[in-house]
């Protein structure tokens, strides 16, 4: 019950934080931001990891966990790299502006 209690608070505060953080963004950054946020949603890799670690002698579960981990890492690694690729163009630009 304590976990549940805390977890619900965490859920509430996390959602509020998300609403506030994203509130003011220039349209330029919408695509990169979407892509970056998308990469963060790959945090389920932690759930997959936990699954694999907690049941080391359950082959079906290990397989499921491993596949799940693969999907999640695909999301995380790909997501951050793609975002970086997009943003690389901006950062070069803004440096040029300051000169």
């Amino acid at each position, binding site marked *: 019950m304590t976990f549940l209690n805390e977890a619900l608070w965490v859920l509430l505060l996390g959602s509020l934080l998300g609403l506030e953080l994203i*509130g003011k963004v220039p349209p330029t950054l919408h695509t990169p*931001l*979407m892509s*970056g946020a998308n990469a963060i949603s790959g945090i*389920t890799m932690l759930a997959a990891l936990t699954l694999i670690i907690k049941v080391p002698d359950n082959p079906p579960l290990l397989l499921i966990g491993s596949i799940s981990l693969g999907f999640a890492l695909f999301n*995380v690694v790909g997501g951050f790299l793609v975002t970086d690729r997009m*943003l690389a163009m901006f950062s070069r630009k803004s440096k040029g502006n300051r000169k």
Partner: protein
Amino acid sequence: MNTPELLKFAIDLIAVLLLALGIKGLSKVRSARAANRIAALAMALAAIGVLINSVGNTGITINSWSWIIIGSLIGGVLGVLTAQRVPMTAMPETVALFNGCGGMSSLLVALGVAFYPLETIPNNSVDNLIETLSIIISIFVGAITFSGSIIAMAKLQGWLSTPNWTQSKVRHAVNITFAIICLIASIQSFQGINNVIFLLLIASLLLGIGVTLSIGGADMPVVISLLNSYSGIAAASAGFVVGSQLLIVAGAMVGAAGLILTQVMCKGMNRSLLSVLFGGSLSKNSNNKSKDGEYKNITSCSSEECALTLEAAERVVIVPGYGLAVAQAQHTLREVTRLLEAEGIEVSYAIHPVAGRMPGHMNVLLAEADVPYEQLKEMDVINPEFPATDVVLVLGANDVVNPQAKNDPDSPLYGMPVLDVNEAKTIFVVKRGMSAGYSGIKNDLFEMQNTSMLFGDAKKVLADLMVELKELGIGKK
């Protein structure tokens, strides 16, 4: 709390802080790139936290390690390859694909725990109820995210068109049926999880397909953004399943962020989220409209005429659209504008909030071609400047410059904020053919007296234009 637990706790706190800072930083051009790296670092830390805690307490067997390494290696390598190979024009599809995989991951975790519970929880307890509920939500939302994202990707790639039946009322009946099956399967699951969970899984997958399939291409960015939000919800829900606070925070943040972005996009297109989700494709609703939408009095011209007009201009505004992205013409465009600038002609770019297939799509594209940031002007800034503009060059944009949105109350576009390019002295529209835009609606701009059409692929037309400009001796100074 023993040492590893304490360490994990500290790492989790730092990770949440960094994730929040990362999202915050992503909202400013200057800090965005560093912020993205901070977020990536936070994710790596979070994974290390889980590993440290497990090694310190229960230990991780070699068997587990090998499964971890296999899974992460395959996923990671594929992720790197995809991220490097994909062209900038295919960004929306790519985000959809990554997003779908995130949903799949949450779904699989929940499915695994459903059949092989991590801890034995007494039946009929509150904990049991919550566990079942979070498993159901993870599977339901994860499945919709996955199938919806894959369909969205396929449609954006042009692998799938919108089937006719999805435009009739039948689709509502079909989707409602899937939804009801999901609901029944969920209720059944509370009596004890068994194979009924697969019914939920299949019905949810079909629901994701059914809902996404009917949505027209122009609305796809909104759908991807919404699905992005869903994948956050799925992650948060998976956090309840495995008991991880960090997952819940991160998932909730992404879920909330996705919702806000979705709202912003809807606003830009003057569409409500409900009409996007349930209204079907715009073009079908306006069928009777486009029947009498034959174009008359179209003036087309050669690139030579266009070059001559540009030479005499003082202020030129470029309106980029999806056609520019498809033709990969941003670099050629930049060379043309360099010539004009060398001649002292003032060039700016009018960026409609939903030009392309995603907000910011055009900014990314033009930034790639070294277009100075301050030349990109947003709609509200550029609109009052059109009457004082000599030449507008519309490159593969259509609906965002359609005057119908202002003048014709019967038009499905009516009320959508558009760029008032028709107020400029001369307008050149570069377009592949006379086909309608993504909304399938006729564009009155093309029939206007001061509009000339330049037919052809944007890159080809711009290359021709450059040759003509050089022959005129522009940019020689």
